[in-house]
């Protein structure tokens, strides 16, 4: 598995898989459990919306790990996963540290630290030092359409990070149905961390070439987002037309991931 005989690498990635899958399943399918575990979380649609979002992102990361399990370790995946794991350790610490002592719950932070350590061990033992060898072409492919999609993806992710820095509350303001609160704002910061990790990973791929494991990650995430968005519309849960910018992004991500996957998959 992972095209290596090193048991420690396999165990580390199995641990990472277990933690990511655990949070993916609980966040997406049973957000009430998470809400019941944290006194700072109220049971409302806003919190369930963000927990579902985090769950889908975790499903994507799990898919990337499964892909690596078959195809071998991939530097670009770790360029995405390690910064993200580190950012989420910071994120959970900030969230809990701001609460009164009797309301603090550091379980998630503990698991995120374990995830981060497991990923770093697997990365260092499996792939050695950092490598920024330049690919022959931009994004590692001569396919102009794929290059364009990757570039749009990079701009989109970087744009979300910049938008958060300029106006942190804009995402909640632009999304009808979401209630502004400290907790909701912290969730938006988490979304920015996802975008930051994607920006780092895309910049890495811009230089060293695209990564199929991240394309698979993106395809799983964007398919789940697309199906969830369609369900929101079909159930009539979208208020005042919803967040048009978010809808356009979800559709764009889905189509972009599909096109890139099907155009590049034959080489893998």
């Amino acid at each position: 598995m992972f095209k290596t005989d090193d048991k420690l690498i396999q165990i580390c990635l199995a641990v990472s898989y277990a933690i990511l899958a655990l949070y993916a399943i609980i966040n997406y399918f049973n957000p009430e459990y998470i809400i019941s575990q944290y006194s700072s979380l109220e049971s409302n649609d806003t919190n369930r919306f963000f927990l579902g979002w985090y769950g889908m992102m975790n499903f994507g990361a799990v898919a990337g790990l499964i892909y690596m399990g078959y195809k071998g370790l991939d530097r670009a995946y770790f360029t995405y996963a390690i910064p993200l794991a580190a950012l989420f350790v910071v994120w959970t610490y900030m969230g809990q540290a701001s609460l009164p002592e009797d309301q603090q719950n550091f379980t998630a932070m503990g698991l995120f630290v374990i995830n981060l350590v497991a990923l770093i061990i697997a990365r260092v033992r499996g792939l050695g030092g950092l490598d920024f060898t330049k690919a022959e072409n931009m994004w590692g492919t001569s396919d102009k359409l794929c290059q364009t999609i990757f570039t749009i993806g990079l701009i989109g992710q970087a744009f979300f990070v910049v938008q958060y820095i300029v106006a942190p509350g804009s995402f909640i303001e632009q999304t009808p149905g979401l209630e502004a609160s400290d907790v909701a704002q912290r969730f938006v910061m988490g979304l920015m961390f996802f975008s930051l990790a994607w920006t780092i990973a895309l910049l890495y791929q811009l230089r060293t070439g695209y990564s199929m494991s991240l394309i698979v990650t993106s395809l799983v995430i964007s398919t789940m987002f697309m199906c969830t968005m369609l369900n929101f519309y079909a159930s009539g849960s979208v208020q005042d037309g919803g967040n048009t910018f978010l809808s356009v992004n979800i559709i764009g991500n889905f189509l972009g991931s599909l096109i890139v996957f099907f155009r590049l998959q034959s080489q893998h």
Partner: protein
Amino acid sequence: MIKLEDRVSVVILCLITFMGTFYALMMVNANFASAFLESLGRPTPNEDTLFWMGWWGYIYLGLGIGNIMALLAPASDSRVFLRAMTMVAMISFIRVLGNNLAIGELDISPTLIAQFLVLIGYSVVLTRTNSRIGKHFGWL
């Protein structure tokens, strides 16, 4: 990466997987499931109904993953799966059709159309990959 040799079958399986994922996520989410039943003119579901709908949702997800596995393997490795899925699709379609007819009139609902399309889809895949039922049984 995709090992299924027939392009039309790949497209059909992708469409079925997407549709299955859409329904799966609808059934596992209580709000979506309630809205779905209300759109069919059914009463608001209680906890037991939601539990069983969620159960079906997880089965749909599992079958979707099965479809993806079938995409990643040559048709010769997926024949039993494709046969089984055609049977499942046929039974599901007959069930939906029967439920419709039991009411007394044939209502061409999106659910009925979706089940019919899934049955046609799997049948086409089955035929195009030479996985027809009976083809590989020596006694037929």
